[in-house]
């Protein structure tokens, strides 16, 4: 089973589709969690997900907004989508009937 942070990265990448790369995924995670996402944590998680075959990354073209540097593009594999769905189902089942409000 994937970890919490891996799930955050996977779901952000699925939402972003072709626009998924380092900075955009960091922004998505920061908005979803309300806390900043460090580039170090993101890149090590990307490596782990890639090793597990859940994503594929590739270098994109350089863009002016990035000072002429390329993006590390992220594509979620079918296996990654399945793992994300499994994690989501587990969280939903585990949360069923649980009241968190105090």
């Amino acid at each position, binding site marked *: 089973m994937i970890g919490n942070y891996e799930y955050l990265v996977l779901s952000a990448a699925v939402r972003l589709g072709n626009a998924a790369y380092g900075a955009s995924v*960091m922004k998505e995670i920061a908005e979803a969690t309300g806390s900043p996402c*460090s*580039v170090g944590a993101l*890149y*090590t998680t990307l490596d782990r997900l890639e090793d597990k075959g859940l994503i594929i990354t590739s270098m994109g073209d350089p863009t002016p*907004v990035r*000072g002429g*540097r*390329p993006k*590390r593009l992220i594509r979620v594999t079918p296996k990654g989508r399945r793992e994300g769905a499994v994690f989501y189902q587990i969280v939903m089942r585990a949360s069923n009937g649980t009241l968190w409000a105090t």
Partner: protein
Amino acid sequence: MGDVKTRPTLLWRTADAVSALLSPAERLAVLGDLAEAHVRDGEALRDVAGLVLRRQLNQACSIAGLCGTFLLALPIGIVLSARAQHWAVGAGVYLWSFLRVGSVEPLARTIWNAGDANAATVAVWVLLNAATLAVWSTGAGWALGAFARRGNWIPVLLFYVTVLLVSMIRNDIGVLPRHPAFAAFGVVATATAVHSALLVIAPALYGLGLGLARRPVSVAARVAFAMAIMLLTYRAVDV
């Protein structure tokens, strides 16, 4: 390659410099993400340093990293610095003797039983020792450069730390009288520092540069270097 033109702050320049320890492609992607996300300079430095640290620890724990550390960096660092200190004791005491009484012969004949040594033969001995250390250290640095070229810097760092620590901790000059009047003590300590700094660390840095360089070293230079190592090592065995 960095973004120092658009963000000419010290922190960003430092982050840019630290990111050089990442692979070239990853470095560009990381700096691009930080620039696009408008991450503050201090946070950028922290993020880049954290990523570099994680990468280095991962590499250090790999088979290649462990081999580089335990089969190359640590043993060679210990041997080189210990040998540098050993020869420094000889060079330092001979130098002290020469400065004190204008001759090295009594010292060579009485204390070290080194035969008919005169200033010229001692000078040749010191120079050959220096050349041996320099060549060995250059070779070690060159080998470490192969690891650094793959982004594996922990063995390189450990090599230099080992050389510095062993040079400071190991103490061959303990065989000498420690009375303050014995001026050779200071001469030997100075010689040890010079040996470690100039004949181990500096050549190893030069060798590291050779190992990091993309341009290949000519076959003739490699053969000459190998011959020098072989001949000087052969001579050093008897020293």
